[in-house]
């Protein structure tokens, strides 16, 4: 957990044009450099701690990470208008969120890494979109069927109010800030807040919001999901120092469930722990045991997956329920494979 707290201090305010003075020592930064690189947070850590980094040679890897991500972003920026144009040629209108849509808001290119282009299409268009994406193998696209993290919202309404941006001369539809903020919060929770950069995204959107941001639209939906979104916003305030003044989350920081911050700190300290499908470990008991360990959900992931309340109740029952649910799904898929 201590490593996670160092990572949080290393990234506090990292999304700002003029981040605050470094809060970590050279030794602390050195100790978490590998974890920062593996979670894609190296460039932001360099930006945040550049004075500190320049004084000590070891984390120069963070600077190189930024340089490489800047080049990588340049590659993807060239490919984005191509991907969107080809989807439109297939009569599919994609919506953009996360990756490129967030990276362009950071103070410099390459600070917010993204490995692919997150494109959201109408469920009815998915097959046509899949075929179009498969016909462009050189372009890394993460194609989403509908808007899984905004599943209680009407796709057409979200599309209609989307912002219109331009990339490479092509008009791009990007989620409106309210929808985007909600999607980022729910995505973060659904994935157990595993990557610090996802929380930086939330902090950035909150701090750069215009005065007209419609908080009712951000929070519209079931009370449990509203509380979950508020919890994500509170996390950005507590862990990364996001300025929540004037937001509905301003008063929630002291009311966050006690398990939330330690869970995320522990997760960040442990790194991502990439999961492979359990099926790939069948017949290899040792590998299966290790993989089962990686599949144990943290409290945030389990709570979000089950739409559980983000309150002070113990999380173990939700984690067990989540494992059982996934186990049942795995069993079903195995049964289908053998039938």
């Amino acid at each position: 957990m201590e490593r996670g707290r160092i990572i949080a201090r290393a990234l506090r305010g990292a999304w700002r044009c003029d981040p605050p003075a470094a809060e970590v020592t050279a030794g602390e930064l050195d100790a978490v450099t590998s974890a920062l690189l593996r979670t894609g947070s190296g460039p932001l850590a360099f930006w945040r701690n550049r004075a500190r980094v320049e004084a000590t040679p070891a984390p120069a890897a963070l600077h190189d990470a930024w340089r490489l991500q800047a080049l990588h972003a340049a590659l993807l920026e060239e490919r984005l208008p191509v991907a969107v144009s080809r989807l439109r040629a297939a009569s599919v209108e994609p919506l953009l969120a996360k990756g490129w849509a967030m990276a362009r808001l950071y103070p410099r290119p390459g600070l917010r890494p993204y490995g692919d282009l997150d494109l959201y299409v109408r469920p009815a268009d998915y097959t046509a979109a899949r075929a179009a994406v498969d016909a462009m193998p050189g372009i890394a696209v993460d194609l989403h069927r509908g808007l899984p993290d905004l599943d209680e919202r009407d796709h057409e309404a979200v599309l209609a109010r989307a912002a219109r941006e331009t990339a490479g001369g092509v008009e791009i539809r990007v989620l409106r800030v309210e929808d985007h903020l909600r999607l980022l919060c729910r995505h973060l929770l659904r994935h157990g807040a595993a990557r610090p950069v996802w929380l930086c995204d939330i902090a950035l959107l909150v701090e750069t919001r215009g005065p007209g941001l419609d908080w009712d639209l951000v929070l519209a939906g079931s009370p449990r999901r509203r509380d979950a979104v508020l919890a994500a916003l509170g996390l950005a305030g507590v862990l990364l120092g996001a300025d929540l003044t004037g937001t509905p989350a301003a008063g929630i920081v002291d009311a966050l469930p006690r398990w939330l911050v330690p869970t995320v700190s522990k997760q960040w300290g442990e790194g991502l722990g990439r999961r492979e499908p359990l099926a790939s470990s069948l017949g290899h008991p040792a590998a299966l045991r290790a993989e089962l360990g990686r599949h144990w959900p943290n409290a945030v992931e389990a709570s979000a997956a089950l739409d559980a309340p983000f309150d002070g109740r113990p999380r173990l029952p939700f984690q067990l329920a989540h494992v059982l649910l996934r186990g049942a799904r795995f069993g079903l898929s195995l049964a289908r494979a053998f039938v």
Partner: protein
Amino acid sequence: MKPRAREAGLVVRELEGELLVYDLEVHRAHRLNRSAAVVFQGCDGRTSVRELADRLQRALGRPTDERWVRLALGRLARAGLLESGSTGPDVAAGVSRREVMQRAGRVAGLTLLLPAVTSIVAPTPAEAAASCVVNCSGQAFGTPCSNSNPSDCGVVCVCNGAGGCVLAADGITPCP
């Protein structure tokens, strides 16, 4: 001699006073300091070495001469960033860093001003392999790799240290 920089197969981006160049043909990333960047950006096939030296002097605000340009051209040529045949055969071997420094005299910070082209390795604390692999089994985290598209190697895709070829930007998403 009127050198010409390569245009095809390069991704170029300016960042914080450096010029970053990714070579899609050999999957190598380079960073050019200001001197090297001025020369690289001036290599249009119409500008002579003399003119490049004038341009460099204006950009740096200090005396330079054709040796500086030849030193930069040598570094750029070795990195494969110039059109082959656009520089004379003596470019790479003709001028050494030491020679330029001796001529320039002892000036504070001179070594930082001299043209430099440096390779960037993948974002990893481990040593990255120089060549691209198609199988990440047993390869260190950060080793350049590709699954289906060779042009993704290195910058786009790297090995994750567990046998997978993943997107370098996030270290988790499998490469396409």
